[in-house]
């Protein structure tokens, strides 16, 4: 029964991701004084792409063809690990937060290989930049996770969220820093401004888009969907770990309903915050990203130090 609920939660996760992307686009458009498309437009885009014939270059190998499925599966697997509505589901026990980071690494490995597969310069450029940024983001993300797990003494996300919920409202300086670090890392990993512009059409400014330039049809639909799921994943992580109130601790229908409403509300607010950030800031030069990510690492390090110095006394 629990497993069935877990599977349903994952499917809900994957189904809601384009809605979040649509709402984000709507907020951005409003802030930039443009008329926004419907918030259901991403669904229509994905459907349109799946009904088109994919055109694949002659030099492409089987890695190019398989990569979209692997990327999508790895992202969906990461989505099973993060509690969306309810806390106590068994899929969180089969993989903890470090495995979740491993799933992202898996998806990124194949995305980078697909970028190198066609043999054009843009693909290589995208792969090279993506691997650089993700390498620099890993220590920052791990520091933030370390701070969380040292406070909750578990890497299992369900138990960590449960621990934070049961403590009540505690103002921890380490959580403040970890939240800031995680927001910075999330912006870098999901490829939003100021790290990468997802809406650019100039190849030399692309990072994520450059690797998927050659994809079309259902392959492109899977990759787009996977990046929407990844954005929602980071949003759910930030919302449910640092502000977990509202998440269902029991599995009754009412609790689950409240949990769903709570997470949708939190994600809507986070999307507004992200839209404001994207509108206020310009995209950074590529070699400024290392300073940005070292700042994120510094925040994580400070969070961990404040945990040791200020919170747990020996």
């Amino acid at each position, binding site marked *: 029964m629990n497993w069935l609920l877990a599977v349903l939660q994952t499917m809900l996760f994957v189904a809601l991701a384009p809605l979040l992307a649509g709402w984000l686009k709507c907020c951005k458009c409003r802030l930039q004084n443009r008329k926004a498309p419907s918030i259901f437009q991403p669904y229509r885009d994905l459907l349109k792409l799946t*009904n088109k014939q*994919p055109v694949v270059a002659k030099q492409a*190998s089987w890695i190019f063809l398989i990569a979209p499925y692997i990327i999508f599966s790895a992202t969906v697997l990461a989505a099973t690990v993060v509690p969306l509505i309810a806390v106590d589901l068994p899929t969180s026990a089969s993989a903890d937060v470090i*495995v979740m980071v491993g799933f992202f690494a898996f998806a990124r490995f194949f995305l980078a290989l697909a970028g190198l597969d066609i*043999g054009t310069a843009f693909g290589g450029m995208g792969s090279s*930049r993506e*691997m650089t940024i993700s*390498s620099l983001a890993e220590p920052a993300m791990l520091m933030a996770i370390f701070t969380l797990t040292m406070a909750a003494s*578990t890497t299992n996300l369900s138990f960590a969220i449960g621990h934070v919920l049961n403590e009540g409202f505690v103002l921890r300086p380490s959580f403040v820093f970890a939240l800031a670090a995680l927001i910075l890392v999330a912006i870098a990993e999901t490829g939003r401004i100021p790290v990468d512009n997802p809406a650019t059409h100039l190849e030399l400014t692309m990072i994520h888009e450059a690797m998927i330039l050659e994809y079309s049809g259902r392959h492109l639909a899977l990759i787009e969907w996977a990046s929407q799921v990844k954005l929602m994943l980071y949003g759910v992580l930030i919302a449910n770990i640092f502000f977990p109130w509202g998440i269902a601790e029991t599995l009754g229908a009412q609790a689950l309903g409240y949990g769903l409403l709570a997470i949708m509300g939190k994600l809507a607010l986070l999307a507004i915050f992200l839209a404001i950030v994207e509108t206020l800031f310009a995209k950074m030069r590529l070699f400024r990203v290392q300073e940005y990510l070292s700042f994120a690492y510094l925040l994580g390090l400070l969070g961990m130090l404040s945990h040791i110095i200020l919170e747990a006394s020996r």
Partner: protein
Amino acid sequence: MILVLAYCAVLLSFASGVLALLMHQRHNLLALSRYWLKKSPESNEKYQSVIDNSLEEKQFPIFLRQAVFVLLGFSGIFAVLAGMSVLTSKEIITDQISLGLPWLPWHVRFDSLSGFFFLIIGIAVSAVSLYGPGYVKSYDENHHPFAALGLFTGLFVSGMLLVLLADDAFFFMIAWELMSVASYFLVAFQHENPANRRAAFIYLLMAEVGALAIILGFGVLASFATGFTFDELRAAELSSTWASIAFVLALTGFGMKAGIVPVHVWLPEAHPVAPSHISALMSGVMLKVAIYGLIRFCFDLIGEVHWQWGLVLLVLGTFSALGGILYAMMQPNLKRLLAYSSVENVGIIFMVLGLSMIFMANGHPQLAALGFLAALLHAFNHALFKNLLFLGAGIIHHQTHELNIDMMGGLIKRMPQTSMLFLVGCMSISSLPLFNGFVSEWLAFQTALQVDVLDNGVLRSLIPVAAAALALTAALAAACFVKVFGLIFLGQPRSHHSDKAHEIQDKGMLAGSMLLAGLCFLFGIFPGLIITLINGVAGQLLGETLPNDAALGWLWLAPVSAKQASYAPPLVLIGALIAAGVSFWYLRRNPSTVMRRAETWDCGFGGLTSKMQYSSSAFTMPFRRIFAKVWMIDEQIDKDMQGAMNQDVAAVRYHLQVQDHSWPRLYQPIERGVNNTAKVVGRIQTGNIRTYLGYSFATLILMLWVIS
């Protein structure tokens, strides 16, 4: 019985070495067989055809090579059996062989730690013996005789196995030297190239300096003990300072063999030069024997570890891990890149061993067992996937005659099976889930996350920083191997040789690699199989096993407790297959969306050539800019200008040289110091006979004075 298996393994590898010597003795063997047939013609008729076939001129080399590798393979299988049996039976078996000195026979000890490393060596040697016959066929018999290769391979493997069995200091050192010198001859196998000779010399020099440090370490222990056997050394009472001195000596010696920064410089010189299956054995297995030596010395012989030693190991391991992978990213030569990557992985093993020591010294033996298990598991995994990668590099070199990844490309269509196996190796070394590299990284992080139990605040701040460095290393390794796989196999061929390459026909070479790839995947999905074995090692050596070892099953991995962290790889695999399968089936239902092939999009300009792809230095350019201080970089761009006012670029020449900092900072000053000292000391050799008579006279006077 178990010991008999171990002895068989050693003897078989020795026999394979001796058998290789018979390569040039075909005529004598022919005469011998004729004589033997004449003696008793009737009973030996059935052997007649077999012997005639094998001793025939063309067939004899092939037959002998196969026989040598068959013996080596059996040696490997016996080693695996011996290791598995001693690990499952959890006994400690001792014996004495009356070779060696008259008052100090060789003591043999076969316990779980030795058994585990026997298992590693056995698997690697079996894979290499499947691979070997096809690979060594390509060596020209006149310049690179198989007799030498086979003999020294056999001696090398038996030396490694004997090191694991040794229970007293003399036997240990003899076996150690056998291993080092045999591998020197293997590294110097292609000695006509002066660069290869230099690499072999550096290798031998550092191996001997390391051995000297190890002997001194044993000497320190022995000066407090009654004898040289390991039992007596264990009983020695050492003061804290002397124990630390012994530790530093052992760290220098074993660290030199394992390849810790800054004494790693022989690794990237020696490994590319040796034949590929020997590089695989050296990188995958010999480095692990060095780690065995360090574990045996510190955890077993000295016994009481201090947390400062753990801190030293942690810091050295972090620098090796980061330095190794950063240097690996800059190498265009595939085998040099793999050698630097071994430096990185040895650094990770040292880091986790250091964590284990810190927990042990602070009174948390179960967490120490967790760290110990993570380190040994990483050693095992590294042996598997590094062997696989080196064997794959050998196949690529065999087919394309190239080792420079900037000259390869597009091999995935021309060598499909090799590419699949190499992909498994790349995925394992990048610590991706579902493969074995991830499990040991996960356990290493779980060990580091237990840092809250320590009292020392400084340690509690340093260990998370080291864990963040480990995360950075893993991400850099993934970037490096994306580059390696992408540039070698994907894209378009960058040279004529890559264009004309085809899949290897030799089944043996593929079989050896397939064995290793299969094991990588198996232990990624069912890590519990190997973890229960290592748990036994930890139990015997440290006296404690995992905090939660009752829950170790084939499905779940929850080393500390299920509340803390758990991981179930088979469930992850099932989930991945379901998700991929559902999306695959669902999206291909519409027949009108069948895939169509077309030319690569070239932005409308046309003329897309293979030179427009990214090269290895281009791929790693962002890293070169960000981490610029780590290397000595010499980058030159020359432009030929033409046209009116010299504004038009006719040609561009780009020269990039990335060098190791340790040469000018550490080794060249040492070299200069040694040379200068030698010059100063050399002044006593004047060549004048009266001076030499004067020396003898002065010594005589001194002796008379002393005696009186």
